[in-house]
């Protein structure tokens, strides 16, 4: 199947600010792409380009086979859903009225709008004015708005900012359901823990440049960050120490029976075998580098590159 979104060598400048630099990226049908980056990395600009709110300074943006600012943009927009970063809606209207207004604009039946309110858990509060809504409820309303008309592509800009942990899980749950239905999702975030399981692919932006993109496992390989191993039991003896050192393991700490090691990812199985053969150990846990660690790795690398470029 063809890609839902294609960005080909896209540049976007705002005066002297170079917001996106030669960015190429694709999103496949039913794929959830996580867009990671610091503030001002270009995440929102990228979304606006896909939505057709902004035109690229150069390069080509294609969404569902069309130019998002071209002739077919009007029909294209019926198939897109968008949740902006900060939206407070119309305080004087009730949640139901707000959603029905957007539903009419998107040519969606009023009945479907009411059903969506139920689905995001606002059924009870539908008649209350948005003014009285909490941050989480506003975000749910925003999500219901983005889901109007069963979009084929959903763009969520920081959908979990300011939400309590339960609400965050709800948002992730909804993304999982949509992914199951074949909807493509572009999700920007800098709240990293917990998001891994809900995204298929990650794109890391730094100062307008795409530093890395791929599956989380792919990025782990690319980064080559060490595995974190924790073991519990009797202190390591000398023979084991030298064996582990031979496998490239770095012993980071050893106090009151808790041993922390970091091992190169390629040696994972060998190191585990060594550890499991040791009768003095009671427990071993292995953690691959987390998404935070991967992000920090690429971000630091990206900033160095940018620094080098400026000096050159």
């Amino acid at each position: 199947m063809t890609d839902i979104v294609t960005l080909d060598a896209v540049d976007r400048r705002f005066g002297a600010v170079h917001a996106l630099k030669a960015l190429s990226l694709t999103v496949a049908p039913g794929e959830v792409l996580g867009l990671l980056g610091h503030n001002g990395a270009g995440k929102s600009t990228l979304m606006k380009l896909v939505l057709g709110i902004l035109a690229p300074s150069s390069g080509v943006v294609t969404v569902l086979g069309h130019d998002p600012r071209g002739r077919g943009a009007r029909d294209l927009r019926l198939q897109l859903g968008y949740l902006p970063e900060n939206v407070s809606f119309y305080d004087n209207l009730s949640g139901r009225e707000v959603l029905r207004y957007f539903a009419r604009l998107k040519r969606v039946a009023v009945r479907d709008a009411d059903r969506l309110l139920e689905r995001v858990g606002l059924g009870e509060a539908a008649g209350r004015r948005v003014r009285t809504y909490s941050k989480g409820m506003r975000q749910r309303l925003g999500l219901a708005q983005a889901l109007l008309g069963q979009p084929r592509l959903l763009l969520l800009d920081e959908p979990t900012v300011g939400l309590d942990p339960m609400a965050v899980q709800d948002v992730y749950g909804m993304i999982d359901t949509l992914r199951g239905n074949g909807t493509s999702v572009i999700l920007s975030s800098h709240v990293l823990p917990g998001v891994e399981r809900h995204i298929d692919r990650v794109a890391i932006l730094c100062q307008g440049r795409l530093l890395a993109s791929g599956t989380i496992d792919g990025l782990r390989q690319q980064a080559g960050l060490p595995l974190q191993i924790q073991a519990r039991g009797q202190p390591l003896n000398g023979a084991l120490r030298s064996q582990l050192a031979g496998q490239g393991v770095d012993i980071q700490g050893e106090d009151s029976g808790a041993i922390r090691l970091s091992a190169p990812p390629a040696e994972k199985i060998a190191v585990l075998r060594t550890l499991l053969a040791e009768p003095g150990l009671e427990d071993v846990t292995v953690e691959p580098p987390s998404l935070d660690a991967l992000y920090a790795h690429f971000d630091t690398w990206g900033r160095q590159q940018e620094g080098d470029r400026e000096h050159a």
Partner: protein
Amino acid sequence: MREVFIVAGKEFRDGLRNRWILAMTVVFALLAMGLAWFGAAASGEVGFTRISTTIVSLASLGVFLIPLIALMLAYDSIVGEDEQGTLLLLMTYPLSRTGLLAGKFLGHGAMLALATVLGFGIAAAMIVLLAEQASWAALAGPFGLFIVSAVLLGWVFLALAYLISVSTREKARAAGLALLVWFLFVLVYDLALLGLLVGTEGQLGGGLFRTLLLLNPTDVFRLVNFTGFEEAAAASGLLTVFSDQAHSPLLLLGILAAWTVVPLVIAALLFAGRRT
């Protein structure tokens, strides 16, 4: 086109809900009835005297009130949505910027027209019912013209309000600009003209002076309602230059219509050219 009406419908319902329409209607009706009864108080009479007195006093007050109401109604229509974040959202819907602006104008314009027609219409009906000297036949013409010109004056300042609203990024700034526009058109312009007239010791040609008056929508509104009445001479001040030749009301209403269309078109162009 469908989206334009959806936006207009929302604005209109908002106006009903937050009682803008009701408040405007009541203010207009009370203003008209109060002036009808007490407009001639200066000459020692109380109660409805003549239609001309009523219209002249109404126009003198309306020229301050109507622009202010229109500006307050619409100054935040775009900049307010921008601050709420809903503008960005609406731009991802199948709705063009021009369509959004047209919907806003249609909704606000209908609100203002309804309140004007209802408010002054109710007042006219009350005057006919309660005052013995008044009759439909005498009232219909001047009141009708007054209402039409008042609606147009309101639309002119709605259009100016959108122009303000698309060219600022902060609501507070838009409010300040709206007040400035009100001052300029309602107070400063006439004062400046008067100053020009006095300063040049009448050297300013009558033709140029008339043209300058016709450039200000509030003066045009006064002209529509003052010409043809003797009482106007006292109330009209600057407009006495026109006493020798009355302009056709159609031309004057046409100028008001142009003052509505031109700022709207400029606002639409500015809005369409905006980055976000």
